[in-house]
């Protein structure tokens, strides 16, 4: 039963959502909306579990003085401090001028932007590897990238007026064709995965039980 009940819930929910996609009747829609509300409630509970997991793992590592434990301490202290500030400001904690907003804008936004900025350097190093021409495919990739990059900057049209046109053609014809092919395959994959779950033949997400 430990395995069957989750499977039955998955199948029933899957069938209902599928039916709800095609039937706009309010009776079906009302249940559909209720299920969405249940999902929000369940996810809210998982935040408690997630927080507990986060605290347990990091506090244990701080106690054991494991490698880089100072970072874990910084995490726990900043987490608790931010939560305390947020709770002290009540439901308006996200308003402009609150201490919570100040913490978010001063610390989190800056650090997040720093992480994102690293992408520029990673793109450069990845491009260096990608554009080393070793095979015919790599040559085609490098040529396409060369035309595209030149075609999308002002100097491209100065070098040759046809470069922006070629860049647009690359994006609209070969790129779009390949992308649509991938998307069609992915869409069929999505349907196949959905059917496998709804029909109960995909059971990997649940324990088979018994061990052995």
């Amino acid at each position, binding site marked *: 039963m430990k395995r069957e009940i989750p499977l039955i819930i998955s199948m029933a929910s899957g069938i209902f959502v599928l039916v709800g*996609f*095609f*039937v*706009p*009747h*309010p009776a079906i*829609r009302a249940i559909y909306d209720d299920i969405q509300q249940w*999902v929000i409630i369940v*996810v809210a509970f*998982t*935040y408690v*579990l*997630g*927080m507990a*997991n*986060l605290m347990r*793992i990091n506090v*244990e590592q701080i106690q054991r003085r494991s*490698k*880089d434990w100072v*970072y874990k301490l910084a995490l726990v202290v900043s987490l608790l401090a931010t939560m305390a500030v947020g709770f002290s400001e009540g439901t308006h904690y996200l308003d402009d001028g609150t201490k919570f907003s100040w913490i978010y804008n001063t610390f989190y936004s800056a*650090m*997040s932007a720093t*992480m994102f900025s*690293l*992408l520029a350097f*990673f*793109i450069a*190093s*990845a*491009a260096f*590897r*990608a554009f080393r021409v070793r095979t015919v495919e790599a040559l085609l990739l490098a040529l396409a990238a060369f035309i595209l990059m030149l075609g999308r900057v002002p100097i491209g049209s100065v070098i040759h007026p046809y470069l922006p046109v070629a860049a647009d053609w690359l994006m609209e014809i070969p790129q779009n064709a390949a*992308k649509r092919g*991938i*998307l*069609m*395959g*992915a869409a*069929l*994959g*999505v*349907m*196949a*995965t959905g*059917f*496998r*779950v709804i*029909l109960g*033949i*995909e059971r*990997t*997400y*649940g*324990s*088979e*039980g*018994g*061990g*052995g």
Partner: protein
Amino acid sequence: MSRLRLDNRALRAYRPLRTARRNTPKGAPSSVKSAGWIVLLSLGVIASHASGFPLQATDTRNDGGGSVTLGWTPPPRPPAQWIVYRAEPGQAFAPIDTIGGELAGYTDEQSGNHAVRNGVPYRYRLVPLPVDATLLSDVSPAATPRVSWFDTGKLNVFIVITLFLGLVLYYIRQSERGKVWSFRPIAGLIAIEEAIGRSTEMGKGVLYVPGVQDIDDIQTIASMIILGKVARMTAKYETPLLVPANSPAVYTVADEVVKGAYSDVGRADAYRADNVRYITSEQFAYVAAVNGMMLRERPAANLFLGAFFAESLLLAETGHETGAIQIAGTANVHQLPFFVVACDYTLIGEEYYAASAYLSKDAKLLGSLKASDTVKIALVVTIVVASILLTLGQPGLAEFFATQ
């Protein structure tokens, strides 16, 4: 044109125009008052026998009822605004809304005092604002809102899904009778087992990143399914498996999947609760934490399987720096180039969704892959035929498969 009555009931039913109220600043009630005079004037016009341009009113198709759609051809010189009037059988016209004069359609799905009730035939008329009898619309034919049981706009999707489901069931039946199919080898999927074996030999762990979307995303669901297969392998080899989750719901599911997989292969004692972790739901904070794990713990294999966005290259490049064997899989087309460049193997689109069936070699699951391939052939044939027909001036098939 049917004769319209102007009586007190219609005036009582009237509520001040929303637009007038919306545009009236505090302390300036005069504009609402003037709107009241405009309505009185317009009620006078609507009671006249003047005829105007045709106004169509029909039940809104494929909805849950309580809605009527109006359509008209705007006059050459449209007014600034239209007042929409509505009448129920045996009752006078009453204004329900004010809309822009440039519009050519309106959907009446009023609630509250003006609620549209299913089964009641409604008639409509448009009155211009400023009031002008020459721009009055005809009274529309009666339209009765009804509840739809099937969205006919999704018939094409329904046909493809039904065909797909039928084929899945057919091929599952075939597999139960012992039919075996062969599929092209997918290097990335073969490499997953090799990568885990390599980690085992090196005495290092496997890092499994399930993407940055929540559990309601199909890519994350597919990732959880693959995680089950990967966890079975790591459990057999007693290789540490690290799963950092970026959503608490994903963490909860991943923890259950890994625990179940270890239990299924009889290695429940090898399961370490600390190895499946909730990190954070913030995208770049998550990247920082996972990159830190890669640099500190140096896993020998990194598996990036799920939905990824801007963080794809940040993760994959860091993993590349650590020298780990990297396998990525996603259906997010825009992230594929980054993974192709920075990873050793990349599962592209459908290969990613095929992974669980491919890894398990279960005949029923492989049946669903066979169905997927068959539908793909059918779709390609349909696209070719529709393109030829469209070129020959027959757009019917192409239009049928256009989605809304």
